[in-house]
């Protein structure tokens, strides 16, 4: 499939090119909606479509006014602050608990492993609306509903399965004799963990942390139910914006978030390559 052999028949030739065109169209479907909001976010008008000036590439058709609105509007700024306050703490909780548990799970004799694994992975499987409903009922009972810590704990719980999965995946390639070597040289388990094990599994921990971060940073269903006006995050503000008073500032925010995704994706890809190189799986 990678290249057309010289003896290909005309039918094969036509199929080869039409298959590529079909794939091109599907890639277009995947990427176009994300790319189209970038130019639209510079619209000088309050429209959600290309104006005549924009199509004529007239500089007057473009402006930074939606970005300006985002950085000056107190509602959006409050939402940004809240997101920045919630996501890192939730990530920290999820990553520290998750890494410890993944190290524990990777030992050779873990009793009740399937049952434990099912419980730990469950936040990822249960549909968000059900998690949100359950947490809303339960957190109202114990007085956490509508509080900062309620949202942080919920987001941390939702992020842990990603940490478990990524860290366990890096631990699969981890050579257990290194731990024994370190112990035989007199290191205690804590030193062994931080000096020997940790540096080797760090790519998994970081990518797990990134997953946990993006889970919290993007999460809207749970915060919609659990949060009060004081915990209004960026996705929540976007959600209300889209549902009620649709304002083009959303496109500016969306473009900034695409930029964040690109940064995250790049970091993850670099981590993956590093981890492959360390394990000698480099594609060359």
């Amino acid at each position: 499939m990678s290249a057309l052999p010289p003896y290909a028949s005309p039918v094969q030739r036509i199929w080869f090119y039409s298959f590529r065109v079909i794939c091109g169209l599907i890639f277009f479907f995947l990427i176009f909606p994300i790319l189209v909001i970038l130019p639209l976010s510079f619209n000088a008008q309050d429209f959600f479509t290309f104006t005549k000036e924009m199509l004529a590439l007239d500089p007057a058709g473009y402006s930074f006014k939606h970005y300006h609105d985002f950085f000056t509007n107190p509602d959006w700024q409050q939402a940004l602050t809240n997101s920045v306050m919630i996501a890192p703490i939730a990530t920290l909780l999820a990553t520290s608990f998750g890494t410890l548990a993944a190290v524990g799970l990777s030992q050779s004799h873990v009793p009740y492993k399937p049952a434990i694994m099912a419980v730990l992975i469950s936040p990822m499987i249960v549909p968000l609306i059900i998690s949100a409903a359950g947490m809303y009922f339960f957190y109202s009972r114990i007085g956490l509903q509508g509080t900062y810590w309620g949202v942080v704990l919920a987001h941390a719980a939702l992020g842990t399965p990603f940490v478990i999965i990524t860290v366990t995946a890096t631990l699969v390639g981890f050579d257990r004799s290194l731990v024994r070597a370190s112990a035989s040289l007199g290191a205690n388990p804590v030193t062994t963990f931080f000096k020997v094990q940790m540096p080797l599994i760090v790519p998994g921990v970081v990518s797990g942390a990134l997953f946990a971060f993006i889970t919290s940073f993007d999460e809207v269903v749970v915060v919609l139910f659990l949060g009060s006006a004081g915990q209004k995050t960026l996705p929540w503000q976007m959600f209300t914006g889209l549902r009620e008073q649709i304002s083009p500032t959303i496109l500016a925010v969306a473009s900034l978030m695409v930029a964040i995704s690109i940064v995250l994706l790049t970091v993850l890809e670099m981590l993956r390559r590093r981890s492959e190189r360390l394990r000698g799986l480099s594609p060359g």
Partner: protein
Amino acid sequence: MSDTTAGEVLTTKDGQPLKVALAKALRREKLRSLALIAPLLIFVLLTFVAPIVDMLFRSVENSIVEETLPRTVVALREWDADSGQVPDEAVYAALYADLAVAVEEKTHTRLGSRLNYEEGGMSSLFRKTGRRIKRMDEAGPFKEQFLEADRKWGELATWNVLRQFSPRFTDGYFLSAFDAQRTADGIEMKPDNERIYMLLFGRTLFLSIVITVSCLVLGYPIAFLLASLPLRSSNLLMILVLLPFWTSLLVRTSAWKVLLQQQGVINDFLVWIGLISDANRLVMINNQTGTIIAMTHILLPFMILPLYSVMKTISPTYVRAAKSLGANDWTAFWRVYFPQSVPGIGAGAVLVFILSIGYYITPELVGGTSGIFISNRIAYHISSSLNWGLAAALGTLLLVAVMVLFTVYDKIVGIDNVKLG
């Protein structure tokens, strides 16, 4: 090995039997791994599993009648509902005593709105009686006074509802979730025009299947292309799959809102090339079309990634062997390549299906009224109608469906083989 004769037990240096020492070491190792897992396990149990269990409990819990009207509930046990007579004076006296306390604590309106889910008019009945209770004569007779306050207290239906919902647990929410109700003749379906939940479950199922099939149709060629290209170019194209995967859900939903609107980019383009006239702009949003398009786009990476990881492992030599044995391109693909990619199809399809039946945000924003899912109804009952019991029952049904599907997923892929990115 002359010194290990039968009957002699191997010991460690300090004289302990070897088996015991090994068992001890194993136990210590188990304890250590459990100690490492314990913090997270407790954390997840408290912050996540307990809420889910609470929700399951709420879907059958019904202590409000017994808590608000404890004496009436006891007195009503004596009453024969089939007699065709309203209860006697003793029950009305108990009701007076209960309501006097309830009005003091202002809990009677809550009970009224709870019972209103089962029978219309109960909320206003309790409000009205609550206002009159202070003016009633404490000496009785209570029956006449209650009938004077509201004629509904003299109706069998009112007392039947009270009696039916006096037990601590109820199947009423689940009956409502199945569009059924309990009448004098037992359980029967509600009239056709009141059946909404079965319709919604059916629609959720139908739309999820459509979305899964669309994802498969669009995802299979992409995964095939990515798996067959050299690593360098497939890594480059992979970015086009991973970027949408990593982009915020709300960003993608707002993009589709922008594209699909009547005054949006796609309609403008179609009008500009003259395919449709300005007056006949397509309605692609706030209906099922909107939900299907946007959700197919959002879930497509979840189909491509598992398919790709399975196709990566299919050796190209099999197809080459088939062709050298005389198979044409189609036969080689259909009889040799495709069967090997079936596990990937299973994994991707179940994953997309699980994700889509629980979706809330996208249908809420682009689905209008005809494109919403059962989750939107759950959210409505939590935040607008405040019928939490029904929300919990609907949630429980959805959860059971997802758990069944997940067991299937576990059988196909295995929970340990979930890969990310």
